[in-house]
């Protein structure tokens, strides 16, 4: 399967009645975005209103609480559309051509369910820990409709859909724009791959998806991944939005939709594909809260690795705590099939870094890349402007009573920062 990505560089965002891309500036009409979001019945039912803002790199701006970060894309050739099964109809994506509005993102923010998490600082020390401080962000702040308290999950769903719709609307603006740069990605069928690269090791990416429920969910072609069995994806499918994020709690190591679209493991494996290895496919597997599910899903990961005659697998985790067991079960079982593994995780080693990093371990998990210690404490300066609200800073994971100090500064663990210890290795705390 072959996909061409056409990157349209966006260096600035301006509100305007006319929607267009000109000289790397996105001109967008927030009223038109709002109207497109409200075409969805669930958004209509549960979101009272949206407000819009733009946050640019280097500004004294804090965005919190963050729900999702999404890169606008549009399918210009080939079957299907972006976010299949959610925004576009179900159709296999990952081939043809897709335009990407690079250098920007749609960020959804605002109160979701009780407390909610994630901080993006556009400048200062916090900005160094989140990749989204480097983007021009079109921020959508949602306000719940009356009576949402008894329908929090419906509201969460509505805001998730609203963000994807905003990104889809903006992506569409790039449909007829000539990309600044194009790049091709292709993986082969099993037999084809063996014939073309007979001497290269066969490597797959075992991509673990957070599926614990209660704001810890991931969707694949619109299907709630906790109700799926471990399965196979063409890597290029992820670039068209086959996987979307439904989770933002403990924001440092949850994969936003932006991460799924720009998965660095996929990118790195493609860079080595045909040179030092044969990138076979992605294996997606979930992280459920029942032990039987953990056992079944990891059994299937190992079984698929064997069926595909792999030599090696990269395993990335999402989240921490009991998913450490999913990680170790996957790794151990895959290794026992004779397939070498390297795992990517992060650490909860205490504020002094002296505690055990993972809740589970095994001698077979002997090649580990870490995204950093999420318990590390950071002081964030006061920002001139807050998009969203600071109401939840004291109660989010990584915060504590008094996190938000009277002078407006915040003392908290890295956990609070969106994407800080990302376990796809998106960030630069350690290995990259």
């Amino acid at each position, binding site marked *: 399967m072959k996909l061409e990505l056409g990157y349209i560089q966006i260096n600035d965002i301006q509100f305007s009645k006319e929607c267009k891309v000109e000289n790397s500036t996105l001109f967008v009409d927030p009223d038109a975005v709002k109207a497109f979001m409200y075409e969805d019945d669930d958004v209509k039912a549960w979101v009272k209103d949206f407000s819009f803002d733009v946050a640019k790199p280097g500004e004294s701006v804090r965005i919190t609480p963050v729900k999702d970060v999404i890169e606008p894309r549009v399918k210009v050739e080939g079957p299907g559309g972006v976010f299949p099964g959610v925004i576009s109809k179900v159709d296999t994506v990952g081939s043809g051509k897709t335009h990407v509005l690079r250098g920007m993102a749609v960020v959804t923010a605002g109160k979701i369910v009780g407390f909610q998490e994630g901080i993006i600082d556009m400048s200062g020390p916090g900005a160094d820990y989140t990749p989204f401080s480097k983007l021009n962000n079109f921020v959508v702040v949602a306000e719940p409709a009356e009576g949402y308290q008894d329908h929090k999950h419906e509201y969460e769903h509505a805001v998730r859909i609203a963000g994807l719709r905003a990104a889809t609307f903006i992506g569409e603006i790039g449909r007829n724009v000539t990309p600044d740069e194009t790049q091709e990605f292709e993986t082969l069928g099993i037999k084809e791959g063996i014939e073309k690269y007979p001497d290269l090791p066969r490597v797959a990416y075992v991509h673990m998806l957070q599926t*614990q429920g209660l704001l810890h969910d991931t969707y694949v072609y619109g299907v709630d991944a906790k109700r799926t069995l471990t399965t196979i994806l063409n890597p290029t499918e992820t670039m068209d939005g086959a996987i979307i994020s439904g989770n933002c709690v403990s924001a440092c190591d949850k994969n936003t939709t932006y991460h799924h679209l720009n998965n660095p493991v996929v990118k790195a494996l493609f860079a080595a594909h045909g040179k030092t290895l044969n990138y076979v496919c992605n294996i997606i597997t979930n992280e459920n*809260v029942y*032990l039987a599910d953990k056992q079944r899903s990891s059994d299937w990961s190992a079984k698929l690795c064997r069926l595909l005659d792999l030599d090696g697998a990269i395993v990335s985790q999402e989240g921490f705590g009991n998913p450490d*067991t999913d990680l170790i*079960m996957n790794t151990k079982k895959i290794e026992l099939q004779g397939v070498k593994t390297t795992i990517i995780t992060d650490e909860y080693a205490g504020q002094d870094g002296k505690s055990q990093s993972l809740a*589970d371990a*095994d001698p077979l998990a002997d090649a580990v890349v870490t995204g950093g210690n999420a318990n590390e404490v950071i002081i964030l300066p006061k920002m001139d402007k807050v998009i969203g609200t600071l109401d939840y800073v004291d109660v989010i994971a990584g915060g504590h009573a008094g996190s938000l100090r009277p002078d407006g500064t915040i003392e908290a663990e890295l956990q609070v920062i969106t994407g800080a210890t990302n376990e796809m290795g998106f960030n630069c705390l350690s290995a990259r």
Partner: protein
Amino acid sequence: MVKEIERAGIPVVHMCTVTPISMTVGANRIVPTIAIPHPLGNPALSPEEEKALRRKLVERALEALTTEVEDQTIFEV
């Protein structure tokens, strides 16, 4: 906590959902429970069924507590 209490000479049953972690940290008597968000209950059941489930789990734990073990043991329910 399990290990510290046992070190003081009092036997402990660790009731938990993710038994592999319990094995890794060294609990000796382990009773597997329902799910991580609700280890000792199941919201999908009726109150009567749930009460029966809870009783079964607690009785199994008490049985484990009074059973001699040579090695780390999982007491399936």
